[in-house]
């Protein structure tokens, strides 16, 4: 089979798989700050999650948290607790809730809510300083939240 053919059949396969279903930010239900149901029907990918956490434009979790398992990510902050061993302190549902909206568990925390679209004061268009046009998408999408969760679950004591 030629390369092109392989590609074509892969594309066909992809198109044939059922669409991934997601829970919209407004439909997420929190119990004591935890979110039991996965936000996306596709499983989380820890490797992608690690990228989201280190990227300035996406999670930028390392701006505030230290993660020793990411030694190549420079300038990790210390606003929040180090995430080392975090999966031994919280279960998956609690971690999902913390990523989606940490304010549900930690009242008044400075940690931003990553899966929320309303309730902002003067929301801007990313980092441009200009007003947002219409309702903002959440900072992370459902799959990214699940990916970050998959990565956090690797951080065991």
């Amino acid at each position, binding site marked *: 089979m030629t390369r092109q053919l392989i590609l074509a059949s892969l594309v066909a396969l992809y198109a044939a798989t059922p669409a991934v279903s997601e829970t919209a930010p407004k439909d997420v239900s929190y119990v004591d700050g935890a979110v039991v149901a996965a936000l996306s029907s596709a499983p989380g990918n820890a490797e992608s999650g690690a990228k989201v956490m280190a990227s300035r434009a996406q999670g930028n979790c390392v701006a505030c948290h230290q993660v020793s398992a990411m030694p190549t990510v420079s300038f990790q902050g*210390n606003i929040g607790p180090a995430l080392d061993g975090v999966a031994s302190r919280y279960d998956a549902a609690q971690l999902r809730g913390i990523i989606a909206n940490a304010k549900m568990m930690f009242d008044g925390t400075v940690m931003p809510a990553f899966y929320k679209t309303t309730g902002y004061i003067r929301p*801007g268009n990313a980092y441009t300083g200009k007003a*947002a046009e219409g309702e903002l998408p959440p900072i992370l999408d459902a799959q990214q939240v699940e990916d970050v969760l998959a990565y956090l679950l690797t951080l065991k004591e």
Partner: protein
Amino acid sequence: MTKRLTGMMAAVVLATSATAWAEQATDTLEIETENGALTLLTEVPAPAHLQDALDTIYSGWLFREADTRSMQKDDFDNPGMVFVDKGADTWNAAMGANGESCAGCHNGPESMAGLRTVTPRVDDKTGKLMIMEDYINGCVTERMGLKKWGTTSNTMKEMLALIAHQSRGEIVNVAIDGAAAPFWKQGQEMYYTRYGQLELSCASCHEENYGNYIRADHLSQGQINGMPTYRLKDAGLVSTQQRFKGCVRDTRAETFNPGSDEFKALELYVASRGNGLSVEGVSVRP
């Protein structure tokens, strides 16, 4: 021991081994000037209105690395001094519609000594809250017949540098009562408002987290006694109004404009959080 405590202790150990977060300095800001050494106050008890929140207020200088701190210790090494000189050139220039100059009305720039310690302030005659830029533009437009200078233009920032420099070593003491009270209240409310998609207030970073690191940045108390500042990264001056815009933008918010009523009120409030610190003239930041 609880799980949480064990985790916290592990974090402390890691912090001291894996990362080198620098501590806040315990350095003295003694500056070599043309007229000898001048020591500035960089750490003083918090003003009364702030004592529920902070015991001590610190100049942002204490949060910078040793090499940046030392640049501010010697006027020869302070890159901001060039802009003070540029401000002086403008001060002396006969630039008005009828050849007026700042010097023509005010004599030398030293006539401005002390002004930086009490601005922003409410103007007696008009009842308006005035930041330094407003005073400057008042002269530029009404007394010199020129078009107003941009709030964050280079010409404006050089003039801010020259005027701030005249008060170097004097103690910040803006009024917060009387006619200033409503503006101050407005600014205080803004300081604690969690703007933007990241829902962070000035207090989130500069009151709750000064001394901590947010990515590579060592957070200070966000004081403005050193404004305008020379920023090495920009190779130029940054004014208070400009800095506010940057900080609000970083919360993924729609910012206010430099020179807006909102940012003027915020400047009064933030200035009052520094009542007791020395004016630093042109400070140096990374």
